[in-house]
């Protein structure tokens, strides 16, 4: 704690760095993962291979993944973001597909009966209903990403891992603790914040269902 108070600028800088790393990775992963989740919901036979492949990729230790990417994408933030995005993909794809699966068959039939096109049904019915699930996927990916991003420092990715590394170099506990505390804090904030957001949407849906609209 003392360390954080003694070096507020450094700690905040690295925290901001960390948020950027994870944030950009999550954006990329969402941009790929949500359409992919919709795709495997539509094209059934793709489901198993896609989920299995992303599941196996997810087990590759992050440091090994970083190391394998380095010869191709170099040292630095870009590599860290790519790797983080791949890790985040699994949770987002899986939850998007699960959310789309949860949409009631009767609801979909009703939408078709109202004369909606496929795209309209997706945009106005299925995606809003799947949104809480998708957000849960993003939440899981973000919390995991915050932890994985700490390791990004070994390939020059910056972020809170820098504090942990400083501690290793000087054999001091304080910078390590500072990095750990900040990263746990970030994880809890993300967990709580995105969780709240998902709850909000869920309540919103229930409310409109009760109103009968």
């Amino acid at each position, binding site marked *: 704690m003392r360390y954080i108070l003694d070096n507020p600028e450094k700690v905040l800088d690295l925290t901001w760095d960390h948020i950027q790393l994870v944030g950009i990775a999550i954006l990329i992963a969402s941009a790929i993962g949500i359409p992919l989740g919709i795709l495997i919901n539509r094209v059934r036979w793709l489901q198993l291979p896609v989920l299995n492949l992303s599941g196996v990729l997810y087990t590759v230790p992050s440091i090994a993944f970083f*190391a394998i990417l380095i010869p191709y994408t170099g040292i630095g933030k870009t590599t860290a973001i790519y790797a983080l995005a791949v890790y985040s993909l699994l949770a987002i794809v899986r939850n998007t597909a699960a959310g789309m699966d949860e949409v009631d068959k009767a609801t979909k039939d009703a939408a078709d009966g109202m004369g909606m096109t496929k795209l309209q049904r997706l945009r106005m019915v299925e995606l809003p209903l799947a949104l809480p699930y998708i957000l849960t996927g993003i939440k899981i990916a973000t919390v995991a990403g915050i932890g994985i991003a700490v390791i990004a420092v070994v390939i020059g990715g910056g972020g809170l891992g820098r504090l*942990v590394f400083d501690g290793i170099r000087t054999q001091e506990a304080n910078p390590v603790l500072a990095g750990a505390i900040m990263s746990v804090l970030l994880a809890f904030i993300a967990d709580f914040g995105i969780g709240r957001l998902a709850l909000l949407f869920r309540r919103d849906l229930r409310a409109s269902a009760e109103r009968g609209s």
Partner: protein
Amino acid sequence: MLRNNDPLDFIDYIRDNPDKFWQLFNQHMTLVIYAVIIGLIIAVPLAILTSRVKALETPMKGLANIGQAVPSLAVLALMLPILGIGFRPSLFALTLLAILPIFLNTLVGIQSADPAVIDAARGMGTSDFQLLRMVQMPLAMPFMFAGIQTAIVQSIALATLSAYIGGGGFGDWILQGLAVRNFPILLAGAVPVAVLAMVAEIVLGLVRRMVVPKGLTV
């Protein structure tokens, strides 16, 4: 050295250094196996105790959840000022982190037993120990196995990081490759670790499917 920096030459590098390869492999797997076994020995009784003593449940679960949020690299780094460098501090950190998934999964497994099943067992006059041994533990098995699987895969990753505190393992080659920008050495460390983790996940998944009865699959 940079002349021959084709990353795919890592296969040649491993072939040229078989002794070192097996030495790193041994260090790596020793860490993983010890950590998971010690973790298992600590986590399962802890989970049983927590399932019996209601007052322990909330604090223990909270502690385990916070523990899982702490970055693993930080756990390793914190061993340095306390235990120094080498195998022992690495094993200590790995064990600490292996306890968490096994503990949480076993606890969830024990608590997942249907109250009606427990009542039925009680009605048949089982003692608390019999209830645990003959009803709750068998029902908790699939969960426990999933916890062990997570702990093994996670330990393979952590053992790589332990190279940073002198724990050895394939992380040594990754570190060395990073330090001198030698891609073959870098990948000679990274690829085996990746393969090890994937193989462990797939094989343990298959074992789980074979060992756990269909009716109990999670």
